[in-house]
């Protein structure tokens, strides 16, 4: 199965507060694929995710990112989102006083408006939403609660996945969505992500741990170390990392 190139990152350099974090990342993601990006703490995994989403704290100093052949870095964050780039945040932000349902509808309608599709009214939206929830086997208790306000760490992560399911992006970037989840929650989240896989979308999973990959089969596993992808391989690479840790790769990278 070979899809079209959805995301092409070439020699990407990025820094935060003058400190260079990404030092030449190359990555190609095709539709239909799931990529796992692993690596030790501080290797730049989350930075890569934030840069792709357009977080203003990061400055791209060199390189290129093409998304569907278009210059992603030239787009404003909201533009990227409307074009189908979704980031599941490592630390989701709380918004008091706004229910999840309201927030989701605003997001869905912003995207629909961008596409030139008619916006959904509250009733239509709730109908569509319930259908979606049913399809992924979630109950609707999340909808009436304020966005991430008073949520436990695990609930926040689940809520990101709920948003992912509702917004149905072309490119989903999951930034350590698995950390802080217990085994059951991890399973639900992973299964939901798996259900959303289609030949026309793609997922980039940023993770520390092998365990999420037992539920979601990655097509490619990359190791990011010191701001560069130092090794890529199949699922076996993840297993190898689980057993041996990252140190052997650092030596290898230093040699290379």
């Amino acid at each position, binding site marked *: 199965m070979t899809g079209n190139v959805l995301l092409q990152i070439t020699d990407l350099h990025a820094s935060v507060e003058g400190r260079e974090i990404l030092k030449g990342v190359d990555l190609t993601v095709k539709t239909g694929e799931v990529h796992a990006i692993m690596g030790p703490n501080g290797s730049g995994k989350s930075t890569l995710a934030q840069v792709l989403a357009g977080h203003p704290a990061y400055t791209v100093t060199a390189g290129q990112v093409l998304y569907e052949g278009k210059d992603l870095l030239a787009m404003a964050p909201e533009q*990227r989102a409307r074009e189908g780039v*979704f980031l599941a945040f490592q630390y989701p932000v709380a*918004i*008091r006083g706004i229910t999840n349902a309201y927030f989701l509808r605003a997001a869905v309608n*912003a995207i629909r408006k961008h596409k030139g599709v008619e916006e959904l009214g509250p009733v239509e939206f709730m109908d569509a939403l319930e259908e979606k929830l049913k399809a992924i086997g979630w109950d609707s208790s999340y909808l009436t609660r304020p966005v991430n306000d008073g949520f436990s760490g695990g609930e926040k992560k689940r809520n990101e996945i709920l948003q992912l399911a509702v*917004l149905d992006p072309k490119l989903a970037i999951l930034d350590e969505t698995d950390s802080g989840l217990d085994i059951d929650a991890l399973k639900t989240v992973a299964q939901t992500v798996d259900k959303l896989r289609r030949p026309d979308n793609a997922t980039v999973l940023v993770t520390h741990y092998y365990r999420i990959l037992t539920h979601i089969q990655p097509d490619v596993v990359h190791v990011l170390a010191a701001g560069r992808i130092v090794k890529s391989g199949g699922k076996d690479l993840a297993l190898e990392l689980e057993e041996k840790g990252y140190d052997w790769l650092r030596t290898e990278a230093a040699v290379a």
Partner: protein
Amino acid sequence: MSSGIEAQVLQPYKYGFVTDIESETVPPGLSEDVIRLISQKKGEPAWMLDWRLKAYRNWLKMPEPHWANVQYGPVDYQAISYYAAPKQRPKLDSLDQVDPKLLETFEKLGIPIEERKRLAGVAVDAVFDSVSVATTFREELKKHGVIFCAISEAIREYPDLVRQYLGSVVPYNDNFFAALNSAVFTDGSFVYVPTGVRCPMELSTYFRINAESTGQFERTLIIADEGSHVSYLEGCSAPVRNENQLHAAVVELVALDRATIKYSTIQNWYPGDEEGRGGIYNFVTKRGACRGRASKISWTQVETGSAITWKYPGCILQGDDSIGEFYSVAVTNHRQQADTGTKMIHMGKNTRSTIVSKGISAGRGQNTYRGLVKILKGAEQARNYSQCDSMLIGDKCGAHTFPYIDVRNSSAIMEHEASTSKIGEDQIFYAKQRGLSAEDAVSMIVNGFCKEVFKELPMEFAVEAQRLLGISLEGSVG
């Protein structure tokens, strides 16, 4: 904080146009002669003039108050014109004779007063500078015994009612600005709801300042007789001008046994430009007396306009089991300053009060909540709940809270909650990542913050308030 959140652009004030109409303006300056002239133009009885003069003589002896947390240069009271009216005075009972320019003005402001365009279920008194130009649905209201008219007309037509209640809640010597208002007030609304009547529609007054170098001094008096119920809303706006114009109003409410008055304000006076040039000084005294048993007065205000706001709508809870409420949203953007809050004076037994205040500061705005809850000796089992929340947008604005609590009866139960939050770059980015624009994100977050207050507004106006809030904060986030 990155620079994005502080980016300031000129906020477009959408009601800043000037109506080109010939008006009759009294030359600037204040004296007993000017007061006599105003009284004469209004065709007032002698007692009214005497009252005005008494207020004026008191005012001369009073110092301008400066305890509020606001800063402004000296006001030259002799440079203000105290009376301005469109030349072609309409007959109040016939809209055909209202100058089309005035009809057009109010229509532009979203307040159509022509018969066929009127808002269903809302009666409007439209006040332009110093005079009421039209009051809609008067006949319909009269069928229910409800009196709704300009106060200048009430002074002539219902002198006994006015005489009995005018100044009974806010005396002519209450404070500097109330005394000034008592001396020179020109128009405003008068409402009387008779015993047992539930007013069949929303009553509303729209105040428009148009003339240059004038002040607006309106006076509103609402009386809800036993067991009656009325909901009243006021709105206001003014043209964009480089000068500061003074607006010193007085509002008095009287609720008798089991009566309820709900008073809502959407204040959108010209706030001045981004550098703080121009704008209205909104120095207002509003007070309601819950005179009867189990009566209730509820204030809801959405304050988005004015260069400076100084107002503390309060309730005097005289009757046993009476209830006072204050719900407020105050926004200061650019260089606006607001010092606002409430006074709840508990006198009767089992009196209850609720205060919910939401202050939003953006740009270099300064927002102060100042509130007094006073429980007097005889107020057995009085209860108060206060909640003061502040929200900051950017890092050059300020939020201040001064709650005063004075309890003289040990059976009182008082609760006070306060919070301060900040719209962060992270919240904005999160919303943007879901496809929302920064402006939509801010408007959504702010509306969520204000929800408890907006739900107190009459339905038709809640939508307007939300929209207005969006406009006021336009440009506060990049």
